[in-house]
């Protein structure tokens, strides 16, 4: 099948009424999550995961993806208007976006960030469409050693990229891998660390752990130190950027799209890193770098484009290799596996409807967001004023019911709360949740591939260096582990 037949197939799936509805709901909820501080996209996807169990797999992934890229859109709105980033990928947008709003140019900032996001999102989706099948075909020749090296490299990179101490990030990754060993041994079926608990026989559930670490812990942190922020009162007029704005933004959007896409493919919080790198790059390339931070439109256009195309890029390793590269991708993997679908090299050829439908829905979703975001900005701003007193009980209630609805099992609520408490305290001493959750999901893949590799090689570790792809990955991993020791660049927290 050539690409046009595929795309046509995709749109026939994405444009089904129910999928259009789920795409719309996803983008709407995503924007909401992006707008409201105190709940990030990971928490939102975690608690909506339970709602998708009864849906068709295509509808489920379409809706969850909508939440993810919707949050990227929504996050920038609050960055620009209130100087509060709704989520981490729009932290940079505050720098110049908020300044622009203070100068009465909120409309232009919001407009360029929406259009930039749309253009970059589309670019990212096109990239995903061409690259994922190619990579998937290449991955068909992968054996256990490659998969082990891949998971190892992924985890190391994520730990390297996590803010703060690398030792702490690695500890979190190992704790996550250990959490992944709870339950039945994937090869022999022997039980480990279950202590006779029935709930733990299949291991820790992804949803309770993710909701605890990202939902509950975040709420606890907000409760610890209450902050009051006032919404900057301004009339938003003229959402359309003018001709000069476009001229200034065209190149940053183009560069941001390309940069974001490639950074998105790499393990780690792609959108976050992409936005920072794009800002730094635009500042360096600019003829007036000293003006950055005072409200220049390039500082909004570039990062906003970058974080959106990174969102699309980050789906590539999951869909073509079956390896999630960030906490949120781990949840997507969970969503697919619940429907009995194993993402990986065979995914695209085995489920063409699902893959192409998902791709097409991202086009549709990006267009919806453009239409949705600009006229509705007034509503989002009003929502921002929802007092936290009302907001946080609702978030907690949804977490509680969401987890319970999975298996009607109270033990899972307790597991979620326990991870919420652990996550809260760990965060306070500089341990991040992302490496943990990723490691927990990758754990079984890593263990199985490592043990199979050793069985193949009869206990000879040279199997990981004798195979070219493997060797490259191992060298990369080693470099990222050794680099910080020599450079001393990264301070320990």
């Amino acid at each position: 099948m050539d690409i046009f037949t595929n795309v046509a197939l995709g749109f026939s799936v994405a444009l089904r009424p129910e999928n259009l509805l789920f795409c719309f709901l996803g983008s709407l909820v995503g924007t909401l999550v992006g707008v409201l501080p105190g709940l990030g996209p990971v928490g939102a996807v975690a608690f909506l995961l339970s709602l998708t169990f009864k849906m068709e797999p295509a509808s489920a992934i379409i809706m969850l993806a909508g939440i993810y890229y919707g949050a990227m859109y929504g996050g920038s709105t609050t960055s620009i208007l209130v100087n509060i980033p709704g989520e981490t990928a729009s932290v940079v947008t505050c720098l110049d976006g908020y300044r622009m709003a203070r100068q009465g140019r909120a409309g232009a900032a919001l407009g360029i960030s929406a259009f930039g996001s749309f253009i970059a999102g589309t670019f990212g989706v096109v990239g995903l469409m061409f690259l994922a099948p190619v990579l998937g075909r290449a991955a068909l020749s992968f054996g256990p050693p490659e998969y082990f090296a891949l998971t190892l490299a992924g985890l190391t990179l994520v730990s390297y990229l996590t803010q703060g101490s690398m030792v702490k990030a690695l500890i979190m990754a190992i704790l996550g891998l250990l959490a992944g060993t709870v339950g039945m041994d994937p090869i022999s079926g022997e039980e480990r660390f279950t202590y006779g608990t029935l709930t733990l026989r299949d291991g820790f559930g992804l949803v309770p752990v993710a909701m605890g670490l990202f939902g509950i812990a975040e709420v606890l942190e907000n409760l610890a130190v209450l902050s009051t922020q006032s919404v900057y009162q301004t009339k938003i007029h003229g959402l359309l950027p003018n001709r000069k704005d476009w001229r200034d933004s065209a190149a940053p959007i183009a560069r941001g799209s390309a940069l974001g896409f490639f950074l998105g493919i790499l393990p780690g919080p792609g959108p976050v890193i992409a936005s920072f790198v794009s800002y730094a790059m635009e500042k360096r390339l600019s003829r007036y770098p000293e003006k950055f931070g005072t409200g220049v439109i390039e500082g909004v256009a570039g990062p906003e484009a970058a974080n959106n195309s990174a969102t699309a890029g980050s789906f590539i390793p999951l869909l073509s290799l079956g390896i999630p590269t960030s906490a949120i991708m781990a949840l997507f993997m969970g969503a697919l596996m619940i429907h009995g679908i194993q993402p990986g090299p065979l995914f695209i050829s085995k489920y063409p409807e699902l893959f192409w439908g998902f791709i097409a829905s991202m086009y549709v979703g990006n267009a919806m967001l453009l239409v949705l975001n600009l006229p509705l900005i007034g509503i989002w701003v009003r929502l921002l004023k929802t007092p936290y007193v009302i907001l946080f009980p609702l978030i907690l209630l949804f977490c509680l019911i969401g987890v319970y609805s999975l298996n009607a099992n109270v033990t899972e609520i307790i597991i979620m709360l326990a991870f919420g408490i652990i996550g809260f305290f760990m965060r306070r001493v500089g341990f991040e949740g992302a490496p943990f959750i990723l490691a927990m999901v990758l754990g079984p893949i890593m263990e199985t591939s490592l043990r199979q590799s050793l069985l193949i090689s009869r206990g000879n570790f040279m199997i990981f260096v004798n195979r070219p792809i493997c060797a490259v990955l191992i060298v990369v991993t080693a470099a990222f582990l050794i680099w910080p020791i020599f450079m001393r660049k990264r301070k320990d927290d």
Partner: protein
Amino acid sequence: MRRANITVALALVSASAFLLFEAGRFNFGTLRVPQTGFFPKTLVTLLLLLSLVLLVQALRRKETERGSEKIAADGWTRIAATLATMIGFALVLEWLGFLLSTFVLMVLLLRAIEAPRWSKVFTVALVTALAVYGLFAWLLSVPLPAGVLGF
């Protein structure tokens, strides 16, 4: 932050010692034929090593970095109250039924930060409980517990 780091490192060292003991019951196998204990034991050993590195780092470093914002007493009260409410919810949910437990949960949580008027608290709690029930039980047909009172 220095003290916090030392405490955490010590906690992690003892946790890995405990896990090393716990993982002891699984068969390691050999490198040729790795068994159930192979992966956990390797991980726990790595954990122990990294925790020791963390400990050494924490001991050698002077107090330079700023820790996270200090939590005031009322912050801790809010956290404790919220957690207690949620644990209570988990314990009574199947006995009291969804609607009633949710109503009580919302009433308590709504008053955790400040004390709005009771009429407001009750209205919000009631509307939320009914709306969420409608969403889950009817729209998504998720079975929710009925409880002793039959609803």
